């Protein structure tokens, strides 16, 4: 990654671990990495650079430290210096600044982009009654799913309603940005333009393009969710915009808990360790909105009162030792869950 991008991951007020940032970018995420990703307000970057090499990342951090932009607070933990802040804002002025950054973490955007582009192409060709075309090649299962959706959704009004919804959204963008984004969509006798062909600033790099595209798709999804408009595009997004962060196994665990099963019962039924079940629950708590996780099932009033008494000050400074009573690993689970709960209650930590 371009060196200056690294700076945007650090903060002047919060010391951040470079190991966590690297793990997030690669999406080699343990529950601990994801927890700190939540604390840093950077869950959105999870899996951003799956090919990133450790040496490359460490080198970039070391270079900025030597240059005086980062100061080491403790081994592996850094804060932006005043000079680092200046460098960071210099960088931010010329590079794309996401407008929906915190919402990125809600959706699997790459997947949604693929199915949206194919569906849009299929509808475009259908509008011209053309059956002989090269469909965009995406994952076969997704191609099949789009085809299936199209079979179900086909109706005389489909094209018009789809286009109307798109138009209503595009109107909310700056005209130039709408022109740029729609130019990337393939359709009937339209190849679609790549990001470097739509007149974005010429100094943008691959990460800027990626961030811009991500922002466009997320803004569409957010708009659909908030305007609550009826229409085929809404149905399509509900069907295809998959939430991020949770494996299907973690989802199953969560449903079982919500249905009243105990952790040991789930563990027995599914042949998983209780530790794994706890990890599923923590991951779910980290990724889901506050209201979507049954905190009250675990954080009883008595437990909360106990934590409240002993855990004060910045959440980043809390230590498990302050609350630990026995060797029971369930205690750590409750401690971490409380940290997640309090983080979410206070609003996600500001990424700045």
């Amino acid at each position: 990654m371009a060196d200056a991008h690294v700076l945007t991951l650090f903060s002047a007020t919060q010391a951040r671990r470079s190991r966590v940032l690297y793990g997030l970018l690669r999406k080699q995420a343990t529950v601990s990495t994801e927890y700190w990703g939540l604390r840093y307000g950077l869950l959105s970057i999870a899996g951003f650079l799956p090919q990133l090499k450790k040496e490359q990342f460490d080198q970039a951090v070391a270079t900025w430290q030597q240059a005086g932009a980062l100061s080491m607070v403790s081994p592996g933990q850094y804060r932006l210096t005043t000079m680092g802040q200046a460098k960071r804002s210099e960088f931010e002025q010329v590079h794309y600044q996401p407008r929906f950054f915190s919402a990125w973490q809600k959706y699997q955007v790459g997947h949604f982009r693929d199915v949206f582009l194919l569906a849009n192409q299929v509808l475009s060709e259908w509008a011209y009654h053309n059956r002989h075309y090269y469909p965009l090649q995406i994952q076969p299962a997704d191609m099949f799913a789009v085809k299936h959706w199209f079979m179900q959704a086909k109706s005389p009004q489909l094209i018009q309603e789809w286009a109307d919804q798109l138009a209503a959204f595009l109107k909310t963008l700056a005209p130039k940005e709408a022109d740029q984004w729609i130019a990337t969509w393939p359709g009937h006798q339209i190849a679609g333009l790549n990001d470097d062909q739509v007149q974005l600033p010429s100094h943008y790099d691959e990460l800027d393009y990626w961030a811009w595209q991500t922002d466009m798709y997320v803004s569409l999804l957010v708009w659909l969710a908030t305007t609550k408009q009826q229409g085929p595009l809404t149905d399509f997004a509900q069907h295809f915009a998959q939430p991020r962060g949770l494996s299907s196994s973690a989802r199953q665990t969560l449903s079982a808990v919500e249905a009243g099963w105990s952790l040991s019962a789930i563990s027995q039924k599914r042949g998983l360790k209780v530790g794994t079940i706890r990890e599923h629950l923590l991951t779910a708590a980290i990724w889901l909105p506050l209201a979507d996780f049954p905190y009250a099932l675990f954080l009883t009033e008595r437990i909360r009162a106990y934590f409240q008494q002993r855990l004060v000050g910045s959440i980043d400074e809390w230590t498990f030792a302050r609350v630990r009573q026995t060797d029971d690993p369930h205690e750590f689970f409750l401690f971490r869950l409380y940290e997640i709960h309090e983080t979410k209650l206070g609003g996600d930590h500001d990424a700045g």
Partner: protein
Amino acid sequence: MMPDDQRLYQVLADHFQFSSFKPGQKEVLSALLAGRQTLAMLPTGAGKSLIYQMMGYLRPGTVVIVTPLLSLMQDQVARLNYMGESAVVALNSTLTGAAKQAVLQQLGHYKFVFISPEMLGQKAVIEAFKRIRLNLLVIDEAHTMVSWGPDFRPDYLSLPTLHQALGRPQLLMLTATATPTMIQELKTAFGATDDWYTYVQSVDRPNIHLHTEQLPDHKAKDQRLLTLVQTLRGPGIIYFSSRKLATTMANWLQTETGRQVVAYHGGLDQVARYRIQQQYMAGDIDVIAATSAFGMGIDKADIRYVIHYHLSSDIPSYLQEIGRAGRDGQPALAVSLYVPGDERLQLHLIDQGIPSSQTIERFATKQGERTGIADVQQRLLTYYLDLAGYSIPQVKAFFGQRRSQRQTDLYQLVQYVQANEHLRAQLMHYFNQSSAEGVDVNESSGAANLKLEALGLVAKQTGRHKSTLTPWSDQLKKLFKLA
């Protein structure tokens, strides 16, 4: 049942809307229908894929096509989709676990399955194929098994074993570039005693004008490239050895010439690749600045020129790449731009691909860390030392021999790019063939001797400026045919 001949023409008309075969297609199809193991060497653009596509409609069962490059696979799938065939899938590393499972469960429903050699080597995959009815096993770009390019895949070496594991289904090996020795090696690998039908067509493409130029340095080469792109009638392709240079040069050429020049390489995602291919097919792009990842499956008939800014790895690869030009039979041009020392880049790639004696030693004794060894070398060594059970001296001798073979192959191409005459004869000689047209026809060397007017390859238009974007409301109407 109607006679084979009549059925062939019927299927050709029904599914492909053609009334006649290109040379070789019918001969190969007849051999296949007669149940013979078949190897066909047809030049690029001769319609190799039509052969196995036809087999899919001539016989029941699944046609399995082993293909080395992902881009080629996707392109073939898209082409079959285009023809209205939906029972087709590509099984490769881009599939997620769940998608792969779904495909394997439905395997028998597909008429065509494109697969990478790595994927075919997986136990679960072989088992799934054993359960279904196989129509034909096709090995595309079969020369990959015995040649040794930078993209060499050890898994290709396992194909004879996999063929055995599948119960020896009927084989069709396809290649555009194999010497008589290579053809013999291929047949031996799968069963020397089988009843083989071999079809070999001349590698010559008489409508492609061959041209070489030697330049003193890279600055002169860049300038010459610029002049050519300004002057030549497109569409064209320029081949580079690195992604980075392809990208930089594309930007530079676009700025300088006003033509639409776009970089294409293996680092682009599938949507980006799709857009570029479609823009190129539609004529929106004048020139592609490509690495060798581009074009294995591209079927654009009117490509007018191919320029090699960097050397290919050997004569077969060179022919393969220039063979993208002039598939419509109209005059086309293949230019090689050479600066002394250009071969160093290729020599370096050979070194990167083939493990040295020290590396072999280190890998085998596991004394050192394996981490310092390049992935491609690790794959090779794992195959030979761990799986195939060769001894260390055997592997050393073998790689030593391979290295010098590849260097020899490279130097044959270097001789070609340095040559001022008998260009066609040199290329043909590599395949033990000679030109039907006689010698030294349609070729030239040196900038002064390239008569573009006579070839009809002078551009009529100068570069166009980037068009402005269409307003979104108009684009939306265009997309969905709205009033």
